[in-house]
C-alpha cells in the first residue's frame, strides 16, 4: 500500500511538472494578446522590479562586503590578497549575483504574485474575467511573466554593482588594499561575454522560471485561504529548487 501511495505521489509530481510545462506554453501563446494590456506589464515591472530594489540593493551591498572580507582573509594566507577584487567579481557575475537575486526575488516578488493570483482564483475574479471574455492568461499571468523576464536582469545588474561597491568599501577603505590593484586585477581577468553576459542570460532564465512557478501556483491554487497559504509556500520551495538546479545546468552549458 505504501508503494502505491509513493507511486501515486510520484505521478502527482510528474503531473504537476507537466501541467506547469503546458502552462508555460499557454503563457507564450497569450503573450501577443497581452500586449494590448501593455500598461499592466509596466505596472508589474514596477511592482516586481522597482519595489524589490530596496531588498536587492541592501543584500547586494552586504553580500559584496562579506565576500570581500572573507576572500581578503583567505587569499592573504596565500599572499594573493590583491586578487580579492577579481575573485569577488567572478563569483558574483557568474554565480552569486543571479542565484541570490533569484532566491530573493522568489521570496519578495514570487510570493506576492502567488498570493495575488491565488486570491483572484479563490475569490472567483478569474472566473469573472472569463465570463467577461477577458483572457486571464493575457491580462493577469502574461504581464507578470514578462515583468519577471525584464525585471530580473536589471535587478541582477544592480545587485552586482552594489556588491562590487560593498567589496570595494571593505577591501580598499577598510582593509587597506590598494585601489588601483583592486580595479586593475579585476579588469585584467573579468571578461564581459563569458562572465557578465552569461550572468545576464542566467538571470533572464531565472526570472522566467520564478514568475512561471509563482503564477502557476497561484493560478492552480485550491480556492481556500489554506490553499493560497500552501501555494505561497510551494512557490518559495519550488522556485529555490528550480533556480539552483537550473543554475547548475546552465553553468554546464554556458561554460
Amino acid at each position, binding site marked *: 500500500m505504501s508503494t502505491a501511495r509513493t507511486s501515486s505521489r510520484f505521478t502527482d509530481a510528474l503531473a504537476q511538472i507537466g501541467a506547469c510545462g503546458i502552462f508555460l506554453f499557454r503563457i507564450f501563446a497569450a503573450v501577443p494578446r497581452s500586449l494590448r494590456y501593455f*500598461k499592466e506589464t*509596466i*505596472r508589474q*515591472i*514596477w511592482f516586481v*522590479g*522597482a519595489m524589490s*530594489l530596496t531588498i536587492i540593493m541592501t543584500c547586494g551591498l552586504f553580500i559584496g562586503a562579506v565576500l570581500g572580507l572573507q576572500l581578503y582573509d583567505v587569499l592573504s594566507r596565500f599572499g594573493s590578497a590583491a586578487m580579492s577584487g577579481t575573485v569577488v*567579481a567572478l563569483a558574483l*557575475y557568474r554565480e552569486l549575483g543571479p542565484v541570490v537575486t533569484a532566491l530573493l526575488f522568489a521570496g519578495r516578488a514570487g510570493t506576492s504574485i502567488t498570493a495575488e493570483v491565488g486570491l483572484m482564483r479563490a475569490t472567483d475574479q478569474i472566473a469573472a474575467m472569463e465570463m467577461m471574455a477577458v483572457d486571464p492568461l493575457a491580462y493577469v499571468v502574461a504581464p507578470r511573466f514578462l515583468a519577471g523576464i*525584464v*525585471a530580473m*536582469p*536589471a*535587478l541582477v*545588474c*544592480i545587485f*552586482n*554593482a552594489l556588491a*562590487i561597491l560593498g567589496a570595494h568599501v571593505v577591501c580598499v577603505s577598510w582593509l587597506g588594499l590598494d585601489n588601483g590593484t583592486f*580595479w586593475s586585477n*579585476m*579588469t*585584467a*581577468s*573579468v*571578461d*564581459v561575454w563569458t*562572465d*557578465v*553576459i552569461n550572468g*545576464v542570460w542566467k538571470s533572464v532564465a531565472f526570472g522566467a522560471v520564478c514568475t512561471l512557478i509563482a503564477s502557476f501556483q497561484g493560478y492552480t491554487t485550491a480556492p481556500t485561504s489554506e490553499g493560497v497559504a500552501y501555494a505561497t509556500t510551494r512557490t518559495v520551495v519550488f522556485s529555490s529548487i528550480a533556480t539552483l538546479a537550473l543554475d547548475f545546468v546552465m553553468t554546464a552549458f554556458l561554460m
Partner: protein
Amino acid sequence: MAQRQSFQIGTGLFILLGFAALAYLATQTTSVANYSQGDSYMIKARFTNVGQLKLRAPVKIAGVRVGSVAGVVLEPERLDALVTLSIDKRYDKIPDDSAAAVFTSGLLGDQYVALQPGGSPDVFKNGDEVVLTQSSMQLEELIGKYLVGQGDSKPPAGKGDDAKPAAKP
C-alpha cells in the same frame, strides 16, 4: 492619472538604472576597459612552445599593452605554434626585426607576448612574420635543469643566465 504617471516614470527609471548598472559592470570592471577600440593589424610569430598562452592575452612592448593574441594554432607541417598577434594601428612603427617572446607576468601569473624592438628601418606590416622568437620558459623544465645541474662540479652558470630573462619579464 497622476499616480499612474508616477509608476510609469518609476518603471522607466528602474529599467534605466538596470541598464546603467550593466553598462557600469561591462565597461568598468571587465577587460573591455583594456580593449583597443581602434583598427589593428596582424603579425605572425612561430614558437616551439607557447606554454599556457591564451586567446586575447596581451601583447606588450616595454611593459605597455599594444595589442592582443588573436589566435594560437598548431601549424601542421612544421609542428610549431603559429600565434597571430593583433597590434593596434597606433603602434605602426615597430621595426620588423623585433623579437617576440612568451613571458609570464609574475612567477605564476598569466602569460603574454613581449615584443623587443629591433633596429631595422623597416616596420611590421599586416601579415608579416616575426623571425626572432623565444618560447615560453617552462617552470618544470627549469627545475629539471637545476636538479640535473646540481651534481656537476661546476655550477651551470650558462643555464642560470638563460633562466634569468624569463624570470624578469
